[in-house]
């Protein structure tokens, strides 16, 4: 059952002492907009792009936003690139190699015609596993960063903005897995701010970026997943 939610309050989050934010590239202007907003907030944004076989397009990036590319989807290459990000960009003001303070996954839009029926897309499956592995390897960074401020693990899916309950949009089913992952991490990493967001595909990139930023400042730690659509901001709750 959907539960309508008001706009979140805004917690003044202290400037992170580990200001590197890894943002995956969904190949849309949303990545560009969000990277800009995050930079504006004081984050050092590194955009992680998937191989072209997985996400054909790369988003344009503003000056100051870095890009690191995954050439393939293997775990070893992923580890190498995460280490590259930490060593190349993760040096804090005090000269000590600081940790990565935020990870935001923007799932590319997987949307299919009605005729296509239920789709388990191979690229989306590869992405889901990759995000799972990113979580595995970022655990030390994110949990350490949490000791000095709010650190983040966010996943943004594009189902229908109401957790798949609209029965109107033929979204890629595998993106739904991100909610299971993020809710689990929320339990495993109690100090890290974990939230799964579902954005209706029609939301404009600017609004989407604002919604994500608002969620990052939400003081409410009991909320694990939230959706945005023409129905407003909602949570999914079990009916009793």
């Amino acid at each position, binding site marked *: 059952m959907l539960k309508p*939610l*008001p706009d979140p309050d805004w917690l003044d989050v202290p400037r992170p002492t580990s200001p590197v934010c890894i943002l995956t590239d969904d190949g849309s202007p949303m990545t560009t907009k969000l990277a800009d907003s995050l930079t504006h907030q004081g984050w050092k944004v590194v955009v992680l792009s998937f191989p072209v076989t997985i996400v054909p397009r790369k988003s344009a990036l503003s000056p100051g936003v870095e890009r690191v590319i995954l050439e393939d989807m293997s775990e070893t290459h992923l580890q190498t690139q995460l280490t590259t990000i930490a060593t190349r960009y993760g040096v804090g003001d005090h000269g000590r190699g600081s940790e990565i303070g935020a990870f935001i996954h923007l799932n590319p839009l997987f949307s299919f015609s009605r005729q296509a029926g*239920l789709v388990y897309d191979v690229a989306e499956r590869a992405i889901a596993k990759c995000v799972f592995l990113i979580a595995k390897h970022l655990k030390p960074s994110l949990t350490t960063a949490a000791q000095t401020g709010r650190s983040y693990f966010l996943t943004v899916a594009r189902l229908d903005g109401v*957790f798949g309950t609209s029965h109107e949009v033929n979204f890629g089913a595998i993106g739904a897995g991100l909610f*299971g992952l993020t809710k689990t991490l929320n339990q495993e990493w109690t100090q890290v701010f974990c939230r799964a967001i579902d954005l209706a595909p029609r939301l404009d990139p600017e609004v989407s970026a604002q919604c994500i930023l608002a969620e990052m400042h939400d003081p409410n730690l009991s909320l694990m997943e939230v959706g945005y659509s023409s129905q407003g901001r909602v949570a999914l709750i079990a009916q009793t």
Partner: protein
Amino acid sequence: MVLAKINTSSVFLVSGGGRGITAECVIRLAQKYQCRWILLGRSRIADAEPAWAEGCTDPADLKKRIMQAMQAQGEKPTPMAVQKQFNAITTSRDIRKTLETLQNIGSPAEYVSVDVTDLATLKEELAPVVDRMGAITGVIHGAGNLADKWIENKTEQDFENVYATKVQGLDNLIHCIPIGQLDHLVLFSSVAGFFGSAGQADYAIANEILNKSAHLIKLHHPECHVVSINWGPWDSGMVTPELKRAFARRGIEVIPIEVGTQMLVNELNARYHDQAQVVIGSPIVPPPADLDGELRSYRIRRRLTVEANPFLRDHVIGGNPVLPATCAANWLISLCTQLHPGYLFSSLENFKVLKGIVFDGTQAKEFVADVQEVGKTHSEEVHFEVRLWSEQDNGKIRFHYSGQVKLRQELSPPPVHLISKFATNSTKSGLSYYQDKTLFHGATFQGIREVLEADDRQLRVQCYLPSLNPRHQGQFLADAFNPYMADVLIQTVLIWLKEQHQSGALPTEIQQITQFKPLPFDRPIFALMETKVKTSTSIIYNVTACDEDGTIYLHLSGVKATISDRLSQLFGTLVSSHS
């Protein structure tokens, strides 16, 4: 649309149906419908058990015999090798028992040993069985595997194993049997998907995909009765006795087999044809995080508009919406509970209305709450000091509300007070007070239903509010603390004053709000208002609220209200402006 009913010619294909909770569900359905079954699992059923194993059911004894048999054959009985043989024997027994039970019920059944993740073999193996059993009318996807580990210890292979059985498995099943031909499609998902589950990242991913798959299937095949059941832990199958004990310590209930299987039968009732996802059982949530010693401070901003808070239109004084004091209390309280999930609101002390928020067009756009943790005890209790303020146009700070909030891991058991038992026959309708504007409140707050008794010291009332759409509650959701019902309790003073021929009053202070249980909507609540101190300009009173059984939900002590003729006039202006 004619909704299909299950009958004796229905044919169900059940992955993972040979054993475990899925087999239990199959048996229960068979008892009810005597339908036909094709059960799938990777395990093979041994044609016959070795003579030394026959009739041996005691696990320790069986393992001993396996060891002896291995030694007799000159093999090395490593614990792993023994366990493997042990599993093969018991699995085989379980499946055979399922088949025998179905036969006794009179439900035709076949078991096919196949891996659901292997599409080619699945197709090949299914064809001849379908020829024998008839076209498949229903699928239950119960196959599942676990690889419980913290995320940092998971391997790609763990992900593949757990994910493939559930997701690839479903994909393969619907490749073999077009959904268009199915009357029923049941997916065994888990609360691990719905709530998340520590140690089960891969499993939670897979189950969430099943959940949303059910919604998508509903989109494509509205005529098919598809449901993803998010089971809580059962008293069987994946839940081992040790796990069950651990659950019990954390107050997590396991689903007894008879109950769970009956729930599945119910779920397949045509009445629930359009419910694509259900949760049955307790979530497995970890206990609230241990409190560290550090005391933190937070600054939290909220923008307030009347549009975003529709209830304000029912709390208008002198023509302007005014934030009810109980909503301000809710604000302070919910900021604290949101910062400490799992902790419950226990009390608010020294709550002061320093400058109420009036929506007259000059109010601030943004309000700021400074929330300061001031004490943490025995990882059971957290205390906060909260102050709410806004900045005026001239840059000056204006304080609006303040108070001290206490949260606890567990609330003390509610005391009992039989207010309802004092009810007399000479009751008076509460609504008349709203009509004559003794109470200025609009529909949202019109909760005093009956005045049971009034004398010069106290007042007894019966209250009730129907549940309020969360959108109507705006930024003041009745979760940790119900500000709408609490306002109704505060209102009692206005009736009492009116009965004593006095003017109107508004609360300025509450010495202590003690909560035992959040006040409910949709349920009669009895309230006793007792005056403590009364002067010509102010009154101090207490209110106790309980249900019809006398269970106390909330106690307000030392509510101080300012009495003034002007207020009566303001309440009254509403009458004139509306008439």
